[in-house]
């Protein structure tokens, strides 16, 4: 007997007897004997205490981001975590429910999705957003395939900035190869920013979309208005990818400048780094393309008494109805993560989000100043280019070596660019958030000086 199995031996005997059976084995008679086994090659059951100890030890072998001054970013960021977020996430009414197919008993989940969609729409500057996607990388994939559909598959080229997170590009490659879509990559200029002229050259009249990231992989803020114009001149859809959603506290989303899709990763909004998942992909577009949008959507309506209510809508785009012709094969959203982001954003507030972003900005500028003051052998790779909360640091040795050496000084300095390829210098991407205190910055600067 195990506590997670509801019927004990006597229960089972009684039920079997009601069914007129001698043994549970009879219920499995339809399985051919050639595929059957008698039990599994796995250890025996364990009690909670053993589990807590064993998995606790396993967790303890990892170095948590909270335990030492940490400047890791590159798509996954550490931001403040209001205790109310996990308190809400721990409510069984949210975490043990499923997709709100029955709106009459799911108004909680549905209204949360509706609020999430609205928050994302306001932050991205576009009028509609979906209920979330797996993560930032797959959101970019969905955006590229979306563009291909909107332009009725007449254009088979996707143009990507090289400064989109390299991992996102790898994921896109996996999907586009199967879909028979070509991908062209545009490297940044000497200042780490994308040159709209090079976008025009790459897109020509063949591209279904041009995708750029801002702030880009190097932390640099792109010239969104010019890039949108260049893209539209080529008849393509403009896609902005955002991997650091907290930047939207201070920077306008691409929708304000005519971008057709703004998508990316909203892990920064209250979702644990969690060794890479589950995170929170988001996708916003213009309402004129709503029917081509992938993923779940909640809509407002009324009940039979005329009271406001919410339900899932436009599900005819989705796989369970349209099957082989669906806009995507996705069948879930990241519901609980979208809830986390909604609670987080509503707790932080509109002005609060602006202050949080301003705090990231101030701390980042302070660390850049300190590094510049230390001077050789340390330098900023793009000292003149505008950044939000991340920048590329170059020093004596490869990025990987630098991170390892700085770790010995008690600082998790960032993410090395060493193994990612790219036309930029081999260095360390350093991310600074509101969680990095002045003391963390002191520790960083001290570590650099010791290694100078």
């Amino acid at each position, binding site marked *: 007997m195990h506590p997670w199995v509801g019927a004990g031996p006597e229960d089972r005997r009684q039920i079997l007897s009601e069914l007129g059976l001698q043994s549970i084995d009879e219920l499995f008679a339809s399985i051919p004997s050639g595929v059957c086994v008698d039990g599994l090659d796995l250890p025996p059951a364990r009690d909670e205490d053993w589990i807590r100890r064993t998995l606790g030890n396993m967790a303890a072998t990892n170095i948590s981001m909270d335990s030492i001054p940490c400047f890791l970013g590159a798509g996954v960021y550490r931001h403040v975590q209001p205790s109310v977020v996990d308190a809400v996430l721990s409510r069984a009414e949210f975490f043990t429910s499923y997709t709100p197919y029955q709106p009459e008993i799911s108004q909680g989940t549905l209204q949360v999705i509706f609020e999430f969609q609205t928050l994302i729409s306001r932050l991205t500057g576009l009028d509609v957003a979906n209920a979330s996607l797996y993560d930032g990388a797959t959101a970019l994939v969905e955006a590229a395939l979306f563009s291909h559909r909107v332009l009725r598959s007449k254009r088979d080229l996707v143009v990507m900035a090289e400064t989109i997170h390299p991992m996102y590009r790898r994921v896109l490659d996996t999907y586009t190869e199967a879909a028979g879509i070509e991908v062209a990559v545009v490297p940044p200029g000497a200042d780490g920013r994308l040159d709209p002229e090079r976008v025009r050259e790459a897109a020509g009249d063949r591209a279904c979309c041009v995708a750029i990231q801002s702030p880009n992989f190097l932390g640099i803020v792109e010239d969104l208005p010019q890039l949108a114009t260049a893209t539209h001149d080529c008849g393509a859809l403009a896609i902005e990818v955002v991997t650091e959603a907290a930047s939207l506290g201070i920077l306008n989303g691409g929708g304000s400048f005519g971008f057709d899709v703004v998508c990316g990763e909203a892990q920064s909004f209250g979702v644990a780094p969690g060794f890479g998942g589950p995170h929170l992909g988001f996708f916003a577009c213009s309402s004129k393309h709503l*029917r081509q949008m992938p993923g779940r959507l909640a809509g407002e309506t009324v009940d039979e008494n005329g009271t406001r209510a919410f339900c899932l809508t436009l*599900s*005819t785009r989705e796989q369970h*109805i*349209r099957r082989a012709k669906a806009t995507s094969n996705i069948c879930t959203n990241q519901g609980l993560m979208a809830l986390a982001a909604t609670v987080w954003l509503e707790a932080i507030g509109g002005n609060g989000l602006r202050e949080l972003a301003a705090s990231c900005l101030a701390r980042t500028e302070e660390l850049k100043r300190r590094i510049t003051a230390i001077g050789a052998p340390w330098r900023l790779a793009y000292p003149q280019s505008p950044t939000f909360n991340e920048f590329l640091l170059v020093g004596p040795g490869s990025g990987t070596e630098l991170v390892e050496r700085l770790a010995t000084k008690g600082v998790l300095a960032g993410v090395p660019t060493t193994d990612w390829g790219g036309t930029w210098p081999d260095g360390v991407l350093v991310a600074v958030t509101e969680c990095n205190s002045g003391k963390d910055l002191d520790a960083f600067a001290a570590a650099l000086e010791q290694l100078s």
Partner: protein
Amino acid sequence: MTIPVDLMYARSHEWIKIEGDSVSVGISHYAQDQLGEVVYVELPEVGTAFAVGDELGTLESVKAVSEFLAPVAGEVLEVNTRLEDEPNLVNDDPYGNGWLVKLSGSAEGGEFLDAAGYKEFLEQESA
């Protein structure tokens, strides 16, 4: 279940009405009833040519999508733009204001039933 006698019917439940060189196409009362309340109609572009049996467009209800087919070969002369804002016309007035498209051409090449034949066909289908 109304089946007007002045129309001709395809076995895929579209009706046609010939007026000079133009063939009006809609779906039958039976078809709209099966589909449920129509929430969206996707219509073809004017000027596009279709062969008999090609997918002309789609009709969506909340829980289903169904295609409607070209009952005759021809080019799209006109589409019912009122359906963009009033898809319910397909349910409320399937043989009138709920028409879908007008095609150039004639009934040649298509296979049609008259009202009596369609009624019989529906009875066989549901048996």
